[in-house]
């Protein structure tokens, strides 16, 4: 059995030798180069685009402006399409914008023979705007007087939904309740995958082929079809290795524009290589969410009624939209069940870069607000915050009516116990109480809520294909993509176990090609081992059945007495090896009696979902005069069900923890209040953690096999990014007594807070 073993990555050799080919490595060097001209106003109407001077640059082939593209609006979110118009994503993008809604919007595209000419010409394109007032604050944008971004959405509200249970007004009438209230802010951050988004397009056999650094090739195919107004079968999308995505590439980015440019230039190959600066501004970012939480609590710490108002800053276009804030609201209402709970979530357009999916999908924001708030309640009550959490957190057996998720195990307590031991919690908690002096230490923690995949919010469909080769090895194909997380390796392990072959005989096809790869939605929602697992299991069993049926012909034994183990056909009654699968495979193909190309392919529609819980402990040292937090130790503990590959799982947790550390301490996109321009659109000014900004990262697991899952697995990709920021914040609170209700806890914020609290 391979599931549960730390086998080496199937793509390790190619990646460690530099042979793994990414989009730009594959593009023809002679491809034309496209460069987007971006808006230099935060809000306005393009009156005129003067391309005359730009066109004189030698090497410029053509310039397309917002007046040259069809009025053909399309959605971009990496969601499965819905045939029900009410559930479709908002179609609010054009290939290029005449009404520009943020500083960095796409106004025109230059196509040239080389990158220098493209860049020179792009700088020379003169755009005349009718400037409009703009708004960047999420609550100001909801005011009647605020500038309106999209006519169809009054008060800029893309969506407003509520959620809850119990009679809130009745519940809070209980005598003796204590009321706690807090406002919490999270920043706009960016994914910062090291490979920027890049794509190229050309025409072949009457089709537009787009090779793209994307997480979602089949979805991109649909959106390119919608954007260009061409049948979806006329679009072919190929996804090679990608240098990270983290949700930014779970969106259709520049593929439609690139395809359009190629189409307009007779199908010549056009490459659109996004710069780092454009990645920060003109791709996607994580929603900043402002949360207002009110809790009514008994003096013994029992939560009675809780209320959340959340305001999610969508930026200029809908992209993934309300899903992010709504998911955060789900977490709020479920993590600490009480008598009555109410959630109000608003997603609001502003004149800022477009927010989309990013690792955690609303939960890092919700956990920062919720877990900071719980800590503050504990402090006010003089209670140990861990006890307060234990008293109120989701109990075993909790069943959520909407998605039928059930809390099967005591994961929270188990994870907390592991984390406490790992960080020596009780000893440190005691040691760090009541400190004075310039340099103080503290310890903090946070739990988190997560779930797996997107059912029942939207479709979960996955398909797998297996093809037997003459040597008994097989190809495996899925629509779920390898984006660095190790999905291909996990899939190969699952396929080997299901079919009964050695791992080295499973050839997972890493690249997706929508003309060839069975339909699948791609990689997102921490769903790949869960969702892909169903398709692999179902298809693998079908495939086995076909092999064994053929084996019956060769061995004259009944299928029910046959099995495939380690690549051999075995008689189960006595364990005898009847023949190697390789012999069967060769015979099946070349048999003069019965030639058969043995394959299997099936679709599994997933109609379940699974909770995935855990916690984080952080220990910090705060230098008060320097306003700096040094993270001394950090431990994440996860129950993500069965670990398919413990070593890769641990590695994935490290990456999520690193992102959470950045979220908690340093990362934040900044905007000029006068112009709406992004100020720190580069890796020097955007403070992504370096090797020197981390302590060693400790990842631990509790393994409770998920009952609804084909292989006992549930989500792990995003959860590690969720609890770190509040754990750090709570550790700083213990160290200094200062509650900071916004991330990142960078020196600028700490300086202000320490002054307010009289520490400086």
């Amino acid at each position, binding site marked *: 059995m391979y599931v549960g073993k730390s086998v080496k990555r199937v793509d390790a050799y190619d990646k460690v030798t530099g042979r793994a080919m990414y989009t730009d490595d594959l593009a023809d060097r002679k491809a034309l180069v496209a460069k987007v001209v971006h808006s230099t106003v935060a809000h306005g109407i393009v009156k005129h685009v003067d391309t005359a001077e730009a066109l004189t640059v030698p090497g410029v082939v053509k310039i397309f402006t917002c007046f040259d593209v069809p009025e053909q609006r399309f959605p971009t979110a990496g969601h499965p399409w819905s045939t029900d118009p009410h559930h479709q994503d908002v179609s609010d993008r054009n290939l290029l914008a005449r009404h520009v809604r943020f500083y960095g919007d796409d106004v025109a595209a230059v196509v040239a023979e080389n990158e220098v000419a493209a860049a020179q010409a792009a700088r020379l394109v003169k755009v005349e705007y009718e400037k409009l007032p703009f708004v960047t604050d999420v609550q100001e944008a909801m005011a009647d007087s605020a500038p309106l971004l999209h006519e169809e959405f009054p008060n800029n509200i893309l969506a407003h939904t509520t959620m809850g249970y119990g009679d809130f007004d009745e519940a809070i009438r209980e005598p003796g309740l204590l009321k706690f209230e807090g406002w919490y802010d999270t920043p706009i951050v960016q994914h910062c995958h090291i490979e920027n988004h890049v794509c190229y397009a050309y025409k072949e056999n009457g089709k537009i082929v787009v090779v793209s650094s994307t997480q979602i090739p089949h979805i991109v195919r649909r959106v390119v079809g919608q954007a260009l107004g061409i049948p979806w079968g006329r679009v072919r999308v190929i996804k090679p290795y990608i240098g990270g995505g983290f949700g930014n590439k779970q969106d259709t980015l520049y593929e439609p524009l690139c395809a359009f440019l190629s189409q307009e230039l007779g199908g010549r190959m056009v490459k659109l290589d996004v710069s780092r600066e454009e990645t920060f501004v003109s791709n996607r970012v994580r929603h900043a969410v402002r949360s207002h939480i009110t809790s009514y609590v008994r003096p013994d710490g029992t939560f009675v009624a809780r209320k959340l108002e959340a305001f999610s800053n969508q930026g200029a276009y809908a992209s993934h939209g309300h899903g992010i804030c709504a998911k955060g609201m789900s977490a709020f209402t479920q993590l600490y069940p009480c008598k009555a709970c109410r959630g109000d979530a608003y997603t609001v357009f502003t004149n800022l870069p477009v927010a989309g999916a990013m690792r955690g999908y609303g939960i890092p924001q919700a956990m920062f607000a919720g877990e900071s708030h719980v800590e503050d309640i504990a402090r006010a009550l003089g209670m140990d915050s861990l006890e307060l959490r234990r008293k109120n957190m989701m109990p075993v057996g909790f069943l959520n009516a909407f998605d039928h998720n059930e809390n099967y195990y005591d994961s929270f307590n188990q994870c907390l116990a592991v984390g406490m031991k790992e960080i020596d919690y009780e000893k440190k908690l005691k040691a760090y109480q009541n400190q004075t002096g310039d340099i103080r230490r503290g310890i903090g923690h946070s739990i988190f809520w997560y779930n797996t995949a997107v059912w029942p919010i939207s479709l979960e469909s996955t398909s797998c294909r297996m093809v037997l080769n003459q040597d008994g090895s097989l190809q495996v194909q899925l629509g779920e993509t390898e984006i660095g997380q190790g999905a291909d390796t996990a899939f190969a392990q699952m396929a080997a176990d299901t079919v009964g072959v050695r791992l080295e005989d499973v050839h997972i096809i890493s690249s997706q090609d929508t003309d060839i790869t069975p339909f699948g939605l791609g990689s997102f929602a921490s769903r790949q081992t869960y969702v892909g697992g169903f398709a692999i299991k179902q298809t693998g069993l079908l495939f086995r059945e076909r092999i064994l049926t053929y084996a019956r012909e060769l061995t004259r034994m009944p299928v029910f007495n046959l099995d495939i183990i380690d690549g051999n056909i075995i008689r189960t009654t006595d364990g005898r090896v009847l023949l190697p699968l390789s012999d069967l495979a060769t015979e099946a193909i070349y048999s003069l009696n019965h030639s058969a190309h043995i394959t299997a392919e099936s679709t599994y529609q997933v109609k379940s979902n699974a909770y995935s819980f855990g916690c984080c402990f952080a220990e910090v040292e705060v230098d008060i005069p320097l306003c700096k937090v040094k993270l001394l130790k950090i431990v994440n503990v996860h129950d993500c069900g069965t670990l398919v590959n413990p070593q890769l799982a641990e590695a994935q947790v490290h990456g999520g923890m690193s992102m959470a550390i950045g979220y908690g301490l340093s990362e934040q996109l900044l905007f000029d209040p006068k112009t709406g321009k992004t100020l720190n659109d580069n*890796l020097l000014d955007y403070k992504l953690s370096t090797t020197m900004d981390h302590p060693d990262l400790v990842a631990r697991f509790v393994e409770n096999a998920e009952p609804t899952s084909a292989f006992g697995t549930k989500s792990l990709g995003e959860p590690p990014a969720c609890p770190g920021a509040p754990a750090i914040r709570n550790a700083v609170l213990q160290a200094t007594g200062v509650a900071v209700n916004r991330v990142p806890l960078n020196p600028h914020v700490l300086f202000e807070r320490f002054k307010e609290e009289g520490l400086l």
Partner: protein
Amino acid sequence: MQTKLIKCTINGKERELMIDVRASLTDALRNDFRLTSVKKGCEVGECGACNVLIDGECFNSCIYLAVWADGKDIRTLESLLGEGGELSDIQQAFVDEAAIQCGFCTPGVIMTAVEILDTKRLYTRDELRKLLSGHLCRCTGYENIINAVEKVMKKRLGLP
């Protein structure tokens, strides 16, 4: 177009090429020599994905003019592989320690690891962090990368 003939050693082989003077070394290595392990992540020397060894020292090739390579000895990740496709010890350690995820920062990081290991010195973990700090990685949290480099460093020095 202004060009210049340059002669240099690339991965052990003497090479001669007419170079567009506007080219970065990244451009030349990727486009002229098709050494695509040299990645573009920011093109302004902030991420380390394009890192190569020049006369034994690490440089971000994106902010190094290709014409400056004249007379230099340049090594990219492609130079580490044995003739039969055998991995070098540091590459094997990256595989064994699960130090690779998306793989995009990997070539640059490994070349810095080569520079570190070639000093034949023992470094503390904090010193290794500093020596590797010119590389941004969003997948690994650096943890297993540091583990891999530390493991090979100790092994080469005959330490447990």
